[in-house]
């Protein structure tokens, strides 16, 4: 019994239209693989990194690229490559935790707002609107200044500043789902409002939120880099890509690698997450059904012929 169910899930994954459409474009496969590699690097950082990322070596300060130090050393003589590898940990942690915080709070607020309606809805959504009116980074900076430095505080600051987008999306989904016949049927089956909301409304609001989560992972990582660059993020000895760019840009003229290398790392990760998020959104969009994925190759060939 258990076995058949598992097999069913795997089969469903294989035949899933969403995944097929999403990975129908090669660039998305490349992005997904890159993300996977980055995550593995972050997890196995102690094994992969050639040097201790926080160990100063004042005899080898600001060295260029060499066989010993592939990406050179920074102003304290720390190995740049090792710091980038360890920095991936910070970036991914912040990305995941911030998205988790924002999505949990945001979805809860959106659900309450959509289901309760009336005054509760107005109050919650006006607060969200007010938060949205302030640019996300400014809001995160403001919250960061209140909360202070530290990994968790950065996650919290970024997380809270991203809450409104989840609340908005969830509320919209709830409004479209809550009058569906199957929710009415739930009421008729004797379900309380809470049960109905959790069992029938919420699971059917998830897909749009999953897309937002993927897309905002990149945003969160970028926000952390920004905060760290501005000195409001991770406290100094810990390697963070944003802080590395900020520490390295003073030496742009003589040792550009120190600032550019972590910058490229940020760019790649954010780009990959955004591409995957966009692809997922396109794949889940029923309006684009049939125009993507099914024989995009054929179409390309056909246009080549013309």
């Amino acid at each position, binding site marked *: 019994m258990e076995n058949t169910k598992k097999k*069913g899930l795997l089969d469903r994954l294989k035949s899933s239209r969403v995944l097929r459409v999403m990975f129908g474009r090669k660039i998305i496969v490349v992005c997904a693989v890159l993300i996977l590699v980055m995550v593995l690097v972050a997890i196995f950082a102690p094994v992969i990194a050639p040097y201790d990322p926080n160990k100063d070596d004042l005899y080898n300060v600001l060295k260029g690229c060499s066989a010993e130090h592939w990406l050179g050393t920074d102003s304290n003589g720390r190995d740049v490559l090792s710091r980038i590898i360890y920095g991936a940990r910070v970036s991914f942690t912040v990305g995941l935790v911030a998205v988790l915080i924002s999505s949990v709070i945001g979805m809860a607020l959106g659900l309450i707002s959509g289901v309760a309606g009336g005054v509760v809805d107005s109050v919650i959504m006006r607060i969200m609107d007010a938060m949205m009116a302030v640019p996300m980074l400014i809001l995160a900076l403001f919250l960061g200044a209140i909360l202070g430095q530290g990994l968790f505080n950065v996650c919290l600051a970024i997380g809270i500043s991203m809450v409104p987008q989840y609340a908005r999306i969830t509320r919209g989904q709830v409004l479209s789902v809550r009058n569906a016949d*199957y929710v*009415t049927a739930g*009421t008729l089956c*004797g379900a309380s409002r809470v049960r109905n909301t959790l*069992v029938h409304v919420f699971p059917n609001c998830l897909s749009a939120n999953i897309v937002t989560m993927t897309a905002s992972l990149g945003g969160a990582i970028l926000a952390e880099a920004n905060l760290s660059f501005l000195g409001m993020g991770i406290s100094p000895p810990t390697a963070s890509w944003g802080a590395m760019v900020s520490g390295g840009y003073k030496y742009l003229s003589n040792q550009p690698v120190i600032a550019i290398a972590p910058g490229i790392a940020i760019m790649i990760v954010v780009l990959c997450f955004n591409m995957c998020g966009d692809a997922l959104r396109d794949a889940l969009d029923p309006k684009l059904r049939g125009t993507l994925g099914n024989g995009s190759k054929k179409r390309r060939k056909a246009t080549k012929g013309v």
Partner: protein
Amino acid sequence: MEDKILIEAKNLKKYFKVGANAQLHAVDGVSFTIKKGQTLGVVGESGCGKSTLGRVLLRLYDVTDGQILYDGVDITKMDSKEIRPIRARMQMIFQDPSGSLDPRKSVKELIGEPLKIYKVCKNQEEYDRRIAEIMKTVGLSERYTESFSHELDGGRRQRIGIGRALAMDPEFIVCDEPVSALDVSIQAQILNLLMDLQKEKGLTYIFITHDLSVVKHISHEIMVMYLGQCVEYAKTKDLFANPLHPYTQGLLDAVPIPSLKAKKLSTQIMRGELTSPVDPAPGCRFAARCPYATDACRGKDIPLKEVEPGHFVSCTRF
């Protein structure tokens, strides 16, 4: 026992607020009684308030005015806690079988939901057995237990809907156009299933439809609705033999007759559109489309009049 009244509506009204101070009269002063084990067919074109009537009876909407008596108990003003034990005895079958089934739930979870909520089954075994029983009753093969509704065809989906409605062994079921989304061969299957179930379990139905041939098949009594009001109310036999209200006549004329001879029959086709149900003027609401309309039809509401025993009509001509 046979003649026990199960559900009674007295001058039932449901108005919806539209805009600042306009009201949509969805159901406007409808009264009827349904005896246990019988079927009341509610007929009318779309927008005449028949679905709203069904939902008001189940108290999915609050009642604007009037009274609903269920088994002698007034349920008009009950709050959601008080209505819960009664809800277990009344159920609904929806028009759109795909829209009324949660796309993320398996057949088993869908049918078993009320069982879980009311905690009917003591253990998993009994729960599984009960679901197998229900699936057998509605004619669903056991291999669909773990399927999702979107993997099945319309007829089977509707069977799931019926199964869910039957799970708690209800007495009263509102069938809101249960067959109009299905194709004709499946329609007959589902109608027969509903009639068999009625015979077997003594169910009481209110059967909402726009299709007169369907209600003829299944109902004991028929109520014809026009713009939220009941215009004719009679035994099925009487209504088809002797339709009195011009609107009922128009509806019957509109039923296509699948015969070449019918080509020569002259039928009167109703013209015009529904008048707006928003704050309607007093008077017969059908007057704008009625070929017999006179000044007597306008200005004041026309009450239902018993023309023959058990045959009511609201028309100035009688």
